[in-house]
């Protein structure tokens, strides 16, 4: 990445790199101290001024030259321990050597990016917990599955749909309480159309009304939201940027691409949601093979309303970001005794730095994984 623009408003120009460099490789370390006993932190160890360093940055093309000049002008660098020197170079590397690698989107990197950027936008679902939602719901290429999700920006739908694969029969009914479904992660996955269309996103009220009360009711009240949907779908089509940048300093929001060719949506009379509601209510009336609930609302009502659509003997998974609502639901379900193997679990996950002589767990961890209440439906 080659910086240009002003300091305040940095822009970068991308250049295809034929080779990559690492500072440690370019700069030969001549001397290092055994420990930091002779280092005084008085803020005067760098002889170059900030302005001088900035000038260097614009004059020099090869980052190793910049850093070599900085080191030469540091009074303390050669007294630092080898460990501190490496740390120093790593910091400089981040500042002056920036590469971008273009990766294919997949659930792992999309969920990692979303968790790092704004965990609140995906209800704080950490990678390990997400991975368990997929396994514990026993989602596979077989069967139909039901998801109620009121705020993970499509991450859960993406996770389940990914595990269902393409060229297989199942459907995913993706219920949401809003006017339109959140699809950010779902779109980011670059699913093929056939796979993407296996996910039927429906408003929970509309689909249940369809199911319980039949077709063509309440179309009048829906007019308003239909219009809203059209606008949003049209908007999505405009989004062009299709690649996810998996760089460490990516702080902007993730851009998405719309893979669907849902132009029929804009055709007159019956809107897409009308057919979606019919399709989803058909799936529900034949019952599903798993139920996943990740709500911002209290999970009890929602779970108990959706439980009848699950075949007996099949699993369910309920996610919530704190334990208390799940504890309360646990007690309720224990009394109802219509579920088996009820379990409330909490995860712990820690990353490690594995380096010769410097192996240790990472100094900061995400201690909030959310909680899962899981079990199996009984007849």
């Amino acid at each position, binding site marked *: 990445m080659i910086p240009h623009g002003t300091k305040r408003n940095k822009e970068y120009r991308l250049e295809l790199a034929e*080779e*990559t460099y*690492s500072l*440690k*490789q370019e700069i*030969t370390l001549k001397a290092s101290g055994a420990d930091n006993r002779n280092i005084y932190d008085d803020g005067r160890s760098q002889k170059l001024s900030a302005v001088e360093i900035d000038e260097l940055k614009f004059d020099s093309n090869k980052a190793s030259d910049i850093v070599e000049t900085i080191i030469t002008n540091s009074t303390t660098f050669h007294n630092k321990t*080898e460990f501190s020197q490496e740390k120093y170079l790593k910091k400089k590397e981040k500042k002056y050597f920036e590469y971008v690698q273009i990766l294919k989107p*997949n*659930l*792992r990197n999309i969920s990692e990016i979303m968790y790092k950027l704004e965990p609140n936008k995906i209800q704080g679902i950490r*990678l*390990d917990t*997400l*991975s*368990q939602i*997929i*396994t*514990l719901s*026993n989602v*596979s290429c*077989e069967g139909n599955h039901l998801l109620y999700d009121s705020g993970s920006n499509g991450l859960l739908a993406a996770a389940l749909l990914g*595990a*269902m*694969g*393409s*060229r*297989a029969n199942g459907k995913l009914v993706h219920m949401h309480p809003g006017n339109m479904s959140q699809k950010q992660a779902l779109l980011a996955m670059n699913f093929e159309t056939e796979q993407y269309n296996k996910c039927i996103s429906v408003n929970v009220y509309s689909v249940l009304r369809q199911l319980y009360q039949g077709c063509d009711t309440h179309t009048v009240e829906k007019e308003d939201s239909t219009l809203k949907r059209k606008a949003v779908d049209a908007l999505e089509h405009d989004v062009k940027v299709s690649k996810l940048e998996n760089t460490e300093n990516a702080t902007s929001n993730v851009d998405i691409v719309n893979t669907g060719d849902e132009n029929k949506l804009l055709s007159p009379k019956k809107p897409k949601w009308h057919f979606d509601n019919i399709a989803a209510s058909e799936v529900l009336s034949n019952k599903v*093979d798993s139920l996943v609930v990740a709500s911002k609302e209290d999970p009890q009502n929602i779970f108990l309303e959706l439980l009848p659509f699950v*075949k*007996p*003997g*099949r*699993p369910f998974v309920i996610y919530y970001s704190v*334990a*208390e609502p799940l*504890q*309360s639901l*646990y*007690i309720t379900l*224990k009394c109802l005794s219509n579920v*088996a*193997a009820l*379990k*409330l*679990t*909490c*995860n*712990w*996950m*820690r*990353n*490690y730095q*594995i380096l*010769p*002589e410097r*192996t240790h767990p990472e100094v900061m961890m995400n201690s909030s994984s959310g909680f899962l209440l899981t079990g*199996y*439906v*009984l*007849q």
Partner: protein
Amino acid sequence: MSFRNFKDKIEEGDTVILYLSNHLHAIEVKPEIKNKKGELIENVYQTTFGALKVRNLIGSEYGSKVELSKGWGHVLQPTPELWSLTLPHRTQIIYTPDISMILLQLDLVPGCVVIEAGTGSGSLTHALIRRIRPHGHVYTFDFHDHRAMLAREEFEAHGIADFVTAQHRDVLAEGFGEDLNGKADAVFLDLPSPWTGVKHAVDAMKNEGGRFCSFSPCIEQVQRTCLALEEHSFQDISTMEILQTELKVSRRTIPVRDLSFLKHKSSNNPVEEKPSSEKNYIVGAWPATAPGHTGYLTVATLPPQYIRTKCKADKDMMEDSKADNQIELQTSDHENGKMCIAENP
């Protein structure tokens, strides 16, 4: 055959999960079994709630209640998760928290080709098969011939043999075989010296690259594996540990002790100074003991072939330039160490 498709009713030959007030049992639905003398007799399964005539399960619905001689239970269709909790242990097994992370870290979706070594008790294998079905394939290896055979029989009995090839092979010594060269999307190792398997993983992976994961209980194994991964141009090498705790939820009544009445002389002194009232809480208690360690997961990406070679060259150059360097010394130390517990060929 109950691992292949979702089913509504139990058939002969199915494996079913019997749920009895928080205890799970895996039962193979065979009306008759052989006794010690080799005679076929009625298959009766004994539980804490009495006997279950296995024959009676046939035709009943999954999720339904079944009568036992001294009570009742429920039957569930097995999932890889329920199977992990009930399978016969032929080795230490990997459980759902780690399995889930392995599947996600290996970027597995239906259609992938994945290699697993060793097969062990097949706990992970069942989850791998479910994830890569219907068009993918699992190649699983075990150096213990008997275990490999038992696994093969089990996959057959579970109706999932189409999606898996279970072989007896010492992959650290022999690699995964030429047939698999350039075929795999992902490689998983659960072996005592995974670092010696890294080169075989590189051979087996597709030209467009793939994901690697190793599960090891000891940190020394992780350290050597990370070094081997770096030497073989892997990227995004990362090590993590996953633990899961089950909270015990209960309604708890906690006494409330009133002390305020002591501030005032009162004519009627209470004789019994017991707690005066109660407060109710729903509590989620952490268990006294829980799994403290299963293993470290080390994951990495093998980049596509065309980048790979270039990185490799860089690496060599780099290694040369600091031959007399302290880090290098350290690496060779580790290589000496490696010999100590390396596998005999």
